[in-house]
């Protein structure tokens, strides 16, 4: 036990000024002080008696009077002052310095406190000068009376007034089993000793909390402690073991505590995150330090002069201690709001580690934001420059954005404190004879962050978040909305000249380039203001769309736009600096460019224009790109400089709550952009399934997010947008008998494998392989050839592998087709070998194994490998030697492995390893070049069920003269698009194609072409076309194959069915009956049901996955 006797000092604790400066509100106000002593209120009388009880009767009335006056009626204070300060020595009677003390001291001190509130001195006017005058080493924070126990027996070893030193000692080192130590054991393990000045051990402080505090603060280099004996039981200085010794512990905070950045801190500007586990050693130490500081403040009765309401609440609720929070939440009954997962993307390659978030939860999260959004007033963009006519809800968005960019006048005070920090005033120095600290004296204040434990002498400014998350649902026109904002506020309202002047003077230096280098090598490298430039970061596929949109909506010459991509980087840092380059109003770049420049910038600072320019505004399009805060792209975005920051995304939370944290961090929305803070008050409670976390998140998102959905209605009950209706139809098809055979064979093969994994219990660990099997099955549903051929057209495949397989026929022409044809004709005749062949073709397709495939003859890895018709392989030299030896013994060549033959040299197919990755994109893009491998005679290319159905539909359209309706054909397999392309060109349809292999410029071209009349059909890969694209020129969509997750398909459909669509949209999804596709469909359905219902735990999810797989192979 110790006795936190409280405040030993008071604000201006100079004895000489006590009487004058005190303006307390207590009974013993200075004006009435004279009257008190013996006659005044009974309370005063009691006080004095109590004081005398404690201190002895030898105190002179004048001293007493002074004491009482200055202590504002607080007996505790008075006693403390008396002993601590020895008061004004002239006022003390000699010999009274060591008065006899009653043994009941403890009880009395604890129980007597007449002034229930510590009366704070009215704070003087604060000036926040960051003076460099840091010539002090330590400052007195306060004193605590602590109760020690002697551990020695001695005579005359110490007496009152002797100095003692403190020393913490770990006396019992438990073998730490886990990294997690409980706080309790920390205390037990440490002991606080006090020694005499010459080092003799005197005793220990028997108080766990105090020990914990002192030990941690000493270890962390935050504080120094000095002690002075104020009372020992025996006035002669004889002590027995376990004798009580009262010590006045003076606490000094060290200058070093402020200058040293605690290593665990997450500095706000810092882009380097330190992601550590909750129980990591560093974090644990940090928590210890933080708690120790807070405890110390409490003991010294130092209170924050300025602190956010939020922090105060948290302090009161005691929630600042993470452990306490957790315990709290663990006991909490969980109701309805389950943190679990949307059982999402079963077949997503990416494993989600943290728990996902369900649609239901998402709706709840957005609910609040959405409700309020209906009543936002409207704002008009400047009509003379902005040509587009905004819809009503878009005007509302503009108003909202304008208001977000205009700072709340309450926040614009430059002096407002960062909400996570608290301001403290250094107390007067009790043992210092310096004159009163002047108001403007440097380092009068210091700052403490109770969340991270950081201390600072510098004022902690709040970073204002100007911007937000525009989260309107896809198709509502986020692009237009943000463009209207750019038109509405193109320049900062402050005088830009100021910045110019600063910059120009810099530039006028002759050795400009050199000075750049020098100035930037220091830590405070400067940024050059791009005062009127809005930087837009978007995915590559949307690059040109942004540029076009900017041009489309702007009256000519009103808004300049440039791309910053590829070779189109027109300006460099130097030219910006020297004002030679004129920055455009809108600069569009991609996440990829951003990331690569960020990498360069890290390696060689101050080189990248993007990161050394202070933009006027930054807009992240499809901002969920940076949902993972540890990715380089995300870090690059954090490092961008601009006051106004916007994030556009239709899905601010994709899977996990943490997704949105990254956006909040990008926006610098204090205090939530601090990860510790976020984790503590949002993430952890949320993961612990605390219902209140929902409220917190709602509260955070509400002012930050604007989200409207397509089916929202305005205040008049009208839908905010009305699109022509869309009709989605599933067309069930049946395999032809040949297709069925092939499908069945592959299906059986896959099922066998799956069952094998099932029995071995290793399904989930062979996930990738099973996934491959599934892909093949799905390809067969499109066209059997997809599953067995390695088409030259699927350029993305072999670019990845770096392996290309070419087949030489006698003329030396490439001909893998022949191989496939041959295989197809043989199909069914040689059943026993079919599986092997299929497997090898499979390997060919995936570029598998051949690089380290062994020649069956020389046992070396294949050198100039060849493929025999039976799909066995060998070195060309080895197999030729063998043929030679066969021939000399009068036999014909045959396969050494399976003896199939006769085989001649002409039958050998070379396996060509392709290293140069040169591929002819042009051909692939148009997919109509005669050299493309996928060419079949009319006879050899049989239409698959799906191709036939598609062709039927298109022909119907053509015959009905309805070709004014453009069509989009989606498939997730580029090879399928190849086939469709071949068929279409044979049938004389005109079409364009867009897939992931195309460069940006090609894509642009394709999109433009499609808008022209005469091009009727676009082939597009599901994944490439999923985001952002605007395909409203089309009104029909054909989805050749289903995706695991219907939302991906919906997204694709929404490319067509979005704002700007004028006619009814018809969507047809082709599904093969009784195939894996039909099963996928039912899984899709169930998933949607699950997503709407309750979430699932991780284990449940695993079980579900397995169940899904079983269903597929049932």
């Amino acid at each position, binding site marked *: 036990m110790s006795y936190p006797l409280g405040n030993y000092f008071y604000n201006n604790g100079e004895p000489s000024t006590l009487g004058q400066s005190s303006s307390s509100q207590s009974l013993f106000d200075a004006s009435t002080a004279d009257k008190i002593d013996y006659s005044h209120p009974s309370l005063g009388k009691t006080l004095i008696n109590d004081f005398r009880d404690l201190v002895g009767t030898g105190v002179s009335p004048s001293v007493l009077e002074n004491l009482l006056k200055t202590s504002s009626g607080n007996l505790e204070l008075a006693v403390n002052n008396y002993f601590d300060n020895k008061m004004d020595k002239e006022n003390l009677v000699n010999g009274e310095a060591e008065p006899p003390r009653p043994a009941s001291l403890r009880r009395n001190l604890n129980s007597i406190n007449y002034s229930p509130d510590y009366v704070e001195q009215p704070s003087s006017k604060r000036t926040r000068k960051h003076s460099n005058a840091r010539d002090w080493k330590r400052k007195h924070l306060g004193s605590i009376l602590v109760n020690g126990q002697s551990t020695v027996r001695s005579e005359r070893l110490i007496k009152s007034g002797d100095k003692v030193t403190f020393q913490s000692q770990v006396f019992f080192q438990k073998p730490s089993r886990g990294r997690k130590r409980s706080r309790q054991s920390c205390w037990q393990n440490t002991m606080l000793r006090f020694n005499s000045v010459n080092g003799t051990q005197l005793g220990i402080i028997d108080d766990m909390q105090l020990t914990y505090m002192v030990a941690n603060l000493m270890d962390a280099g935050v504080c120094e402690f000095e002690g002075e004996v104020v009372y020992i039981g025996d006035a002669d200085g004889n002590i027995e073991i376990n004798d009580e010794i009262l010590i006045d512990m003076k606490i000094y905070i060290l200058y070093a505590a402020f200058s040293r950045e605690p290593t665990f801190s997450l500095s706000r500007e810092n882009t380097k995150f330190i992601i550590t586990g909750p129980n990591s050693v560093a974090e644990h130490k940090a928590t210890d330090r933080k708690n120790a500081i807070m405890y110390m403040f409490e003991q010294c009765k130092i209170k924050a002069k300025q602190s956010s309401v939020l922090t105060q609440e948290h302090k009161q609720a005691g929630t600042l201690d993470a452990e306490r929070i957790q315990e709290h939440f663990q006991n909490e009954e969980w109701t309805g709001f389950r943190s679990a997962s949307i059982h999402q993307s079963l077949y997503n390659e990416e494993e989600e580690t943290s728990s996902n978030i369900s649609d239901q939860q998402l709706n709840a999260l957005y609910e609040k934001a959405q409700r309020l959004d209906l009543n936002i007033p409207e704002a008009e963009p400047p009509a003379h420059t902005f040509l587009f006519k905004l819809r009503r809800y878009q005007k509302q968005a503009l108003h909202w954005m304008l208001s977000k960019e205009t700072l709340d006048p309450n926040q614009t005070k430059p002096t407002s404190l960062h909400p996570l920090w608290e301001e403290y005033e250094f107390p007067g120095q009790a043992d210092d004879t310096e004159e009163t600290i002047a108001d403007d004296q440097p380092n009068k204040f210091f700052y403490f962050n109770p969340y991270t434990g950081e201390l600072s002498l510098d004022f902690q400014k709040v970073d204002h978040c100007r911007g937000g998350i525009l989260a309107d649902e896809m198709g509502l026109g986020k692009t237009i909305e943000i463009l209207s904002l750019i038109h509405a506020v193109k320049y900062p309202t402050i005088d830009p000249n100021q910045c110019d002047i600063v910059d120009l003077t810099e530039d006028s230096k002759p050795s400009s380039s050199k000075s750049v280098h020098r100035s930037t090598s220091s830590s405070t490298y400067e940024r050059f203001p791009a005062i009127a430039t809005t930087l837009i970061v978007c995915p590559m596929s949307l690059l040109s769309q942004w540029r076009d949109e900017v041009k489309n909506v702007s009256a000519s010459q009103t808004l300049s736009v440039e791309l910053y991509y590829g070779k189109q980087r027109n300006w460099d840092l130097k030219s910006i600096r020297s004002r030679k380059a004129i920055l455009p109003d809108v600069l569009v770049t991609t996440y990829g460019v951003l990331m690569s420049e960020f990498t360069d910038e890290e390696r060689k600072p101050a080189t990248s224009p993007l990161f050394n320019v202070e933009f006027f505004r930054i807009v992240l399009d499809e901002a969920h790109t940076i949902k993972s805060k540890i990715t380089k792209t995300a870090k690059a975005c954090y490092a961008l400089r601009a006051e106004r920051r916007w994030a556009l995304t239709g899905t601010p939370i994709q899977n996990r709550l943490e997704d949105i944290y990254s956006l909040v961090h990008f926006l610098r929305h204090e205090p939530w952009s601090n990860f510790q803070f976020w984790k503590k008050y949002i993430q952890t409670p949320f993961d612990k399934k605390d219902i209140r976390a929902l409220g917190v998140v709602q509260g955070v998102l509400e002012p930050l997010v604007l989200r409207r959905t397509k089916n929202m209605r305005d205040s008049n009950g009208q839908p905010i947008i009305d699109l022509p209706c869309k009709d989605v139809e599933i067309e069930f098809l049946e395999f032809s008998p040949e297709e069925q055979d092939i499908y069945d064979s592959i299906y059986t093969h896959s099922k066998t494998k799956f069952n094998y994994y099932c029995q071995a219990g290793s399904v989930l660990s062979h996930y990738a392989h099973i996934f491959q099997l599934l892909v093949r099955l799905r390809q067969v549903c499109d066209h059997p050839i997809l599953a067995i051929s390695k088409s030259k057209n699927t350029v993305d495949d072999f670019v990845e592998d770096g392996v290309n397989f070419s087949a030489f026929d006698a003329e030396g022409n490439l001909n893998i087709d022949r191989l496939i044809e041959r295989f197809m004709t043989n199909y069914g005749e040689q059943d026993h070998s079919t599986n092997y062949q299929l497997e090898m073709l499979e390997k060919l397709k995936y570029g598998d194994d051949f690089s380290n495939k062994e020649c069956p*003859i020389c*046992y*070396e890895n294949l050198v100039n490998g060849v493929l025999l018709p039976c799909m066995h392989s060998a070195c060309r030299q080895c197999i030729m030697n*063998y043929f030679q*030896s066969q021939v000399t013994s009068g036999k014909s060549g*045959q396969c050494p*492995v399976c*003896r199939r033959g006769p085989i001649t040299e002409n039958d050998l197919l070379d396996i060509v390893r392709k290293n140069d990755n040169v591929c002819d994109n042009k051909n692939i893009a148009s997919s109509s070049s005669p050299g493309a491998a996928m060419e079949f005679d009319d006879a050899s290319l049989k239409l698959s069920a799906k191709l036939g159905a598609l062709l039927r539909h298109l022909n119907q359209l053509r015959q009905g003269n309805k070709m004014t309706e453009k069509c989009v054909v989606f498939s997730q397999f580029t090879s399928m698009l190849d086939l469709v392309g071949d068929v279409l060109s044979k049938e004389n349809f005109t079409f364009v194609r867009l897939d992931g292999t195309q460069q940006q410029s090609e894509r642009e071209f394709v999109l433009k072409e499609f808008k022209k009349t005469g091009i009727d059909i676009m082939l597009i890969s599901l994944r490439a076309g999923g985001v952002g694209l605007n395909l409203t020129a089309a009104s029909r969509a054909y989805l050749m194959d289903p995706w695991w997750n219907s939302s991906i398909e919906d997204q694709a459909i929404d490319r067509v069915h979005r704002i700007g669509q004028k006619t009814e949209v018809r969507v047809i999804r082709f599904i093969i009956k009784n195939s894996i596709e039909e099963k996928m469909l039912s899984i899709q359905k169930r998933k949607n049901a699950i997503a709407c219902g309750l979430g699932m735990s991780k284990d449940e999810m695993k079980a579900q996955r397995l169940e899904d797989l079983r269903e597929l192979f049932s």
Partner: protein
Amino acid sequence: MSMLPKRIIKETERLIADAAPGINARPHEENLRYFDVDITGPEQSPFEGGIFKLELFLPEEYPMTPPKVRFLTRIYHPNIDKLGRICLDILKDKWSPALQIRTVLLSIQALLSAPNPDDPLANDVAQHWKDNEPEAIAKAREWTLNYAERITPPQ
């Protein structure tokens, strides 16, 4: 002699590292193309309980030509003659370089399990087998006991 081809080294390594059950092959230290081989008589065959010694030689042209294999232990078998020569197609015209020592020895082991008197090398034995199989088998058993190194039958 030219350098040992990599194939032979690899085969040898694999033979030793991952021996087939009942087959033991060790190269001679002075000539790595020459192998001492022990084949355990397959269960349920008249050769059960015996260990048969063979020699195996990889000619210069190997693997384009088959290895040369001969029984050293006397054996009563229609496809193996008095000199221990073996009548097995893969050791002759059905040889393929994709075959290897291991497959050859496994084939020989299989041959012990399934004698083929229709394609005889030792005509008298084959005839015996055809005329009176039980008697021939009994004789093969007797030979095994007499000539093949004995192993204690498992209790």
